[in-house]
Structures are given as structure tokens and as C-alpha cells.
């Protein structure tokens, strides 16, 4: 019991300091500057209460009181409920207007009526009184009001675009380096998996058996399917980032397109590092062919995966749903990429689906990279590399074209992200139609 009390006091001291500093700062921020501070607060402690100037008290969407803090006590006292001595006034007033509180005396409607009556008793010089009187009597011709509605002039960016882009790109590069969740954990996972591949398929290239051919095909499928799939690990952090960006866009720091651009640029070094790691470890241990082509393919495929994770992060309400969504999409892409079912065996009306996944272009390029050219095996089914490619109906594939497709695929997903963010931004702005004063 004593330990609990001690802990309570320690926590209380820390929080009191923060609350005091915050309220002191806010009062100073507003005081004499012509600026205003508007806060929502559930039930302020008594010392926070004393630092407030103006109170708006609501209950069930109705106005219970508004005006200076100094006048709230006269209002409740006049209605027979003055704040008892040594009692937190905020607690008292909030409890009084809460008709779900078991000890409540008046309903919300009764308090709303009481406040309206109280307002009418106030002096004519009171700003609030003047406003209410005018609001009920002021008339404005409809056509006059209509012509004064203009497009929004709320700022969408504070700094110059190139400065904002540079600053955001720098932020996301630092985030990439300093936040282990974004890159660090994946570096470890990708390295471990590449090592495991290397151990299991050590010196695979030196073997020419039929089994080695099958191993090569399986390994290349895994390279596309699983390394791409692992990019889902970035999604939770992308969703967290969304909250920060929403706040900054709401406060007019920049257009969301700037964020999308900066994040796309800043994700490149991460995918580069992951691609170079997996390529180096895998190819060094398995001796698979053509380091450069393998790396470019892996890099572009990971870029697509990164872009898709970013797109999903803009669309889902929670990162768990995002992970489920991405997992579902990649599961579908693996089915369609041409490894489990060659293109000619697709139902005719679903053939087009084979060309939808970026996995298709990545995997078949890996295959051409490995089996293209003058390659021979000790296998009756696959005496040459060309026979393997024929089996999967990818002998006519052009690697350069596929790499360009992958590059465009990634850019297209980034464009979709931009479109989603822009639509959200337009919807946000639509709620802020400005009328310019005369």
C-alpha cells in the first residue's frame, strides 16, 4: 500500500509539472498577442482550471455555458448550485450538466434553457449578448451571400516546395537510418534468409543434374515471392507515419504530394541495400549467374513492394488490416506469376491476370538470367536452359523490357499513392470553403 502511494506521488509530481508548464505557456502565448488558444479538456484539475480564461461547457451537443471563467460560478449559483468550498469547480460544473450522473438534479434541456435565460439577463454591452441578438435578427439577401462564396485560400504549404521536399527527404532518410523497425530488422531478416539459401543451395551452379535444375527454379521463385513479401514489415511504420503526415497536412505545412515524393526517394537507399545484401550473399554462396542483372531485378522488385506497402498504408484504417491486405495481394500474385501455372494453361478469360503481378516480370527475368544462353544439363527433360524456358513459356522474354516494366510499375504505384493522398486532401479542403470579407 505504501509503495503504491509513493508511486502515485512520483507520477503526480511529473504530470503536475507538465500540466503546469503547458498551461503557463498557453496563457502566455495568448496573452496580449491577439492570438487565441482553444483547447478541449475533459475535467481539468483545480490548478489547471484557474489558468483558463474562457469556458465553453457542453453536454449532449448542447451549450450549457459559455463565457468568462469568472462568470460561470454566478451562473450556477443563480440556478441554485454554487460550487461547494474546497471542491474542484470544474468537477462540480461538469457533474451538474451530466444527466447520466446518478446525482444530477436538472436535465440537459433544463440547463440549456437556464443558460439562455441567464444570457438575456446580462448587460447589453456584453459581446456575447450582442452576437446572439444580432444572429437572430440579422438578415442578408440570399443572392448577396451566394456571390461571396469563393474558392479556398487556406494555405497548402508554408515553405517553398523545393525546401519542403528537401527537408522531408532528409527526414525520411534519417528515419531509415535511425528507426530499426523500417530497415534494421529487415536487413537482419534478409541477411539471415540469404545465408540460409546459401547454405541449403551451396554451389548450386556447379551441379548440372535434373534436381539442380528444379532447385534453381524453386530458388528463383522463392527470391521473388518471399523477399518481396517481407516488405510488409515496413507497413506498420508507414501507418504510424501517416498519422504524423495527416497532422502536418492539416496544419498546412505541405501538400501530401511532397510527402509521397520524399518518401519514395528516401525508400530507394533502403531497397538498394536490401537488394545488394541478398544478391551478394545468395550469389556468392550459390554461384548463380550474372550478378548485375540479378541485383537490378531484385532492386526494382523490392521498389515495387515498397511502393505497394506505402499505398496500402494510405488506404487501411489499421496496420493489421494492411498486412492482411498485402498478404492477400501477394498470395494472389504468386499464383498468377507463371510458376505454378504456365500462361497457356490459364482459363482464357483470366489470361490477362498473368500480366498483372510485378512478380511475373521479375520471376521470368530471373529465369532468363539463369537459363538463357548456351546452358546444358544432365537431364532428359531439360537438356538445355532453353528447354526450361520453353517449359514455362518465357523463352521470348526480353530482360531489358521487363526491367523497364518493373521500373514503370513502381512509379505507377507511387502515382496511385499520390492520387489517394490527393483525393483525401481535396475532401479535406472541400470542408473549408472560404468566404472573403468585404
Amino acid at each position, binding site marked *: 500500500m505504501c509503495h503504491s502511494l509513493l508511486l502515485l506521488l512520483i507520477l*503526480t509530481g*511529473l*504530470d503536475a509539472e*507538465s*500540466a503546469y508548464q*503547458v*498551461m503557463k505557456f*498557453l496563457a*502566455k502565448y*495568448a496573452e496580449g498577442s*491577439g492570438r*487565441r*488558444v*482553444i*483547447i*478541449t479538456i475533459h475535467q*481539468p*484539475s*483545480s490548478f489547471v482550471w484557474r489558468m*483558463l480564461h*474562457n*469556458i465553453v*461547457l*457542453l453536454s*449532449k*451537443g*448542447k*451549450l450549457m455555458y459559455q463565457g468568462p471563467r469568472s462568470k460561470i460560478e454566478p451562473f450556477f449559483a443563480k440556478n441554485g448550485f454554487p460550487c461547494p468550498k*474546497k471542491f*474542484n469547480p470544474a468537477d462540480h460544473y*461538469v457533474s451538474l*450538466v451530466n444527466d447520466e450522473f446518478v446525482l444530477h438534479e436538472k436535465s440537459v434541456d433544463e440547463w440549456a434553457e437556464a443558460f439562455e435565460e441567464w444570457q438575456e439577463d446580462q448587460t447589453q454591452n456584453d*459581446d456575447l449578448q*450582442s*452576437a*446572439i441578438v444580432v*444572429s437572430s435578427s*440579422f438578415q*442578408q439577401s*440570399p*443572392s448577396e451571400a*451566394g456571390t461571396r462564396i469563393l474558392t479556398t485560400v487556406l494555405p497548402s504549404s*508554408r*515553405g*517553398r516546395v523545393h525546401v519542403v521536399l528537401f*527537408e522531408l527527404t532528409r*527526414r525520411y532518410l534519417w*528515419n531509415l537510418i535511425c*528507426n530499426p523497425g523500417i530497415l534494421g530488422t529487415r536487413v537482419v531478416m534478409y541477411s539471415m534468409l540469404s545465408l540460409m539459401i546459401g547454405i541449403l543451395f551451396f554451389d548450386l551452379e556447379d551441379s548440372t543434374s535434373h534436381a539442380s535444375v528444379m532447385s534453381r527454379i524453386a530458388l528463383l521463385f522463392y527470391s521473388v515471392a518471399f523477399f518481396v513479401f517481407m516488405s510488409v514489415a515496413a507497413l506498420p511504420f508507414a501507418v504510424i507515419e501517416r498519422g*504524423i503526415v495527416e*497532422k502536418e497536412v492539416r496544419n*498546412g505545412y505541405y501538400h501530401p504530394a511532397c510527402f509521397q515524393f520524399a518518401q519514395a526517394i528516401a525508400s530507394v537507399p533502403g531497397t538498394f541495400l536490401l537488394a545488394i545484401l541478398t544478391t551478394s550473399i545468395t550469389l556468392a554462396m550459390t554461384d548463380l549467374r550474372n550478378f548485375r542483372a540479378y541485383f537490378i531485378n531484385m532492386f526494382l522488385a523490392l521498389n515495387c513492394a515498397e511502393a505497394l506497402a506505402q499505398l496500402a498504408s494510405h488506404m487501411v484504417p489499421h496496420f493489421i488490416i494492411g498486412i492482411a491486405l498485402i498478404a492477400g495481394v501477394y498470395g494472389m500474385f504468386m499464383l498468377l506469376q507463371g510458376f505454378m501455372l504456365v500462361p497457356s494453361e490459364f482459363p482464357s478469360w483470366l489470361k490477362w491476370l498473368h500480366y498483372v503481378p510485378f512478380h511475373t516480370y521479375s520471376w521470368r527475368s530471373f529465369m532468363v538470367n539463369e537459363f538463357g544462353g548456351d546452358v546444358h544439363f544432365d537431364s532428359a527433360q531439360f537438356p538445355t536452359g532453353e528447354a526450361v524456358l520453353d517449359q514455362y513459356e518465357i523463352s521470348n522474354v526480353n530482360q531489358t523490357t521487363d526491367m523497364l516494366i518493373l521500373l514503370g510499375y513502381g512509379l505507377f504505384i507511387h502515382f496511385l499513392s499520390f492520387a489517394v493522398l490527393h483525393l483525401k486532401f481535396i475532401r479535406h*479542403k*472541400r*470542408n473549408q*470553403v*472560404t*468566404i*472573403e*470579407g468585404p
Partner: protein
Amino acid sequence: MLQTVVVQTEKDRPALYPTMNSSTPVNLGDIETPEQPINLAESTGMKGNAFAQVDYVEVQTKKEENPVLLHPMTVLFPESKVTAIMGPSGSGKSTPLNFVTGTLESGLTAKGMVKLSGRMGFVPQDDRLHGFYTCRSYVEHYSRLTGAKDNFANAKHSMDLLVGLGMDSHSDTIVGDMFRKGLSGGQKRRLSIALEALSSPETLFLDEPTSGKILFLSRSRNLFMI
């Protein structure tokens, strides 16, 4: 700059309250509206006072049970003052804030008018911060983001803000995240406020700036006071 914002959600009641599109001027003379927006500031000459005139904020629902989130009201926000919107849980405290800032959630219809001068800054209830920045580098980052020049005056302004919030002794402490320990909850809240106050918005909105552990404090103090 005098800036008056009409808040009207996208899916409004079609017959009486047509959707107001930001790019298309709407002639209200062609629309049968029982209540026209009234510019109280102009009519009363209260240039210093900002206000929110709420006609309604409702949940878009066919059910008739309590769809109204905010009833008609005119709320004033006097300048040079700290205004607190208070009420019991579920009283709709955040709705006026979202109404004023034009960020009502989807599924609501709203009509009314808001007059605020100058730029607004909003500090949400949850601290949305990057964990790797220190307080000082975060303020510098926001300073650059707002286009402020990298000079002595701006650097002093940044440090003054941290001092004003009692954060100067933590200026080289990182915010912290799930991997690294950093600022406490109250310190993060103070940093969030410093970041938004940096560009001196004329209106600073804060959603529950003393929440979290402070609620614990408020309860314990009440116990002593009773």
C-alpha cells in the same frame, strides 16, 4: 487577413442544404435555405472575436435516435484568451474543434460558419512524433519546414519556446520510440505544442493538452480536496 470558413460536409442534405464545392460558386439565392449563414463579425463589428456558428452537426443515419451531435449554437473565441471546451464524456467536445478546423469525420453532415483570422495550428491528443529527433533538432526541422531562415533570431525563437515549456534541459534528449527510451509522455506533449507554436499561428487548437497521466493527477487532487 480576415478569414471566414463555411463548414459544410460533402454529403449534405440535398433538398435544403446542397453540397458546397470549393471550386464551384454556389448561388444561395436559388436554394431554399431556412437559415442563411450570417457574418457576425461584420455585423457586430467584433473584429477581434472569432466565432463558430453551428447550425447543426448530425450523424448521417436513417435511424431517428439521437443523430444530432451539435445543436444550433454560436460560440465565441475571444482573442488573447485561452478558451476551454469542456463537458462530460460523450458531450461532443471534439466536435466543435473538428467543425472549426473543417475536419469532421465522414458520415457526418454539418452546416454553419466559422470566422477565424490568420493561420491555425492543431495539436492532436496523441503525440505524433518521430522517435529519432532530439527536441532541438525537431524544432530546427520544423523551422526549416516552415521556410524560416537559418539565422540567430530564429534559433533564439526556437530555444525560447523550449525554455517557455520547461524543455530546455531536455533539448538534446531524443523523443524515443519502441526501440529507444526518450521523453516522457508529458514532455512529448510539450514538444508537440512547441512545434506547432513555432510558426506562431493566430489560433492554436489543442485536443486534451493535459490528458493522459494528468487525469490521474486530477482524480488524486480531488480526493485531497474532498
